[in-house]
């Protein structure tokens, strides 16, 4: 029984006929409802990404990407796209927001050259909330001589939550900003016990953000479909644990589509081993 309705003398309980809002299963039920209706419409759920649905026939191709109740539809023909919209409109009450401009904090700009993904609004929001919108801009996110350690001599921060909140928000920003990912990867190592030194480094990232908040990734329109990857590692890059930092960039043609900067889980015994 829901809280407030319990009656100890009455042994009866309620049977739920519908998975309602607020239940643990609600999100799962919603996804299965949406996906079964898409599967009815001859879509195929892809194995590489379970929230991606694709329908392919001889002359049209439709891809549907789902994030909870936000749906992106992409197609090569407009008629096929409208059919999917009509179908979804019949099954669910939907709101058509037109061409894709803003999705999960990521803004999109289209031009003849390609599509630019950027998070200008998100970046400016962080700057306003931290009070850095009037800060002096700097041209790179982290000083190259800077070595940060957990056992820093500077005093611990009194407000730990503010540091954690800031790094958490910056982490989402790396979605369109590979230039920040090294700095934020390093700063997020100190989440458990941040010192003033770390906060200063984080503030520098903010001032870099202030210099170019609207920077984003260009996905070129006339690009080949060939995967290219760059891989590198920094042997013993973390001075506390002596673990190496590994990172990669993956390009599809000329557009950067995937990247990562991550501390390796094990200690490498040689620089060659660190590369693997």
């Amino acid at each position, binding site marked *: 029984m829901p809280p407030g309705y319990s009656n100890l003398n009455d042994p009866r309980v309620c049977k739920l006929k519908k998975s309602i809002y607020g239940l643990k299963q609600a999100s799962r039920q919603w996804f299965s409802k949406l996906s079964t209706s898409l599967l009815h419409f001859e879509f195929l759920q892809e194995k590489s990404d379970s929230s991606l649905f694709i329908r392919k026939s001889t002359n049209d191709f439709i891809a549907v990407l789902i994030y909870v109740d936000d749906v992106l539809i992409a197609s090569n023909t407009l008629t096929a796209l409208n059919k999917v919209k009509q179908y979804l409109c019949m099954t669910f009450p939907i709101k058509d927001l037109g061409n894709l401009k803003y999705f999960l904090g990521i803004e999109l700009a289209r031009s003849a050259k390609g599509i630019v993904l950027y998070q*200008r609004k998100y970046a400016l929001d962080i700057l306003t909330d931290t009070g850095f919108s009037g800060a002096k801009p700097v041209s790179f996110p982290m000083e190259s001589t800077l070595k940060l350690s957990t056992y820093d001599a500077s005093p611990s921060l009194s407000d730990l939550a503010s540091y954690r909140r800031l790094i958490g928000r910056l982490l989402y920003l790396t979605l369109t900003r*590979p230039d920040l990912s090294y700095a934020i990867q390093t700063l997020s190592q100190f989440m458990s016990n941040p010192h003033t030194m770390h906060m200063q480094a984080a503030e520098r990232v903010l001032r870099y953000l202030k210099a170019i908040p609207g920077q984003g990734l260009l996905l070129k329109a006339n690009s080949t479909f060939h995967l290219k*990857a760059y891989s*590198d590692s920094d042997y013993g890059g973390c001075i506390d644990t002596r673990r190496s930092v590994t990172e990669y960039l993956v390009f599809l043609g000329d557009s950067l589509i995937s990247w990562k900067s991550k501390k390796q889980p094990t200690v*490498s*015994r040689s620089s060659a081993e660190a590369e693997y």
Partner: protein
Amino acid sequence: MATTSCEIQWLTYLLVDFHIPHSQPALLYTDSKLASEIASNPVHHERTKHIQLDCHLIRKKLQEGLLNIIHIPSRFQLADALTKPLGYHTLNPILGKMGMVNNHSHLEGGYWNLEQTINTHKEHIKPSKIAEKATHAED
């Protein structure tokens, strides 16, 4: 490299799902000559140490024709921007190659703004250098 090849593998599956043919092997650039040679040479040398699971994974992927390892000089290594903190003059060309553009440059004053950023940076670095010298003097 093992994490990279896993990512490449996943992306190839994704391309197959999108019905985009990707028949030729993906190119994996690394600036470590040693690592690329150990991976592409299947003969196990007696003096090659520290070779573990990850290396064998890459060898397997190489033999399957999923990827090709190519050695490039460090100055062309774009992944550098994610291994170490870089200054403005090294970071900026890399960002250009990554395809990063400043979308609102025309609103923020375009090229002039960029120059100004460098200048403000120069002003900024001076006090810190003086402070550095002061600490050295104390030592």
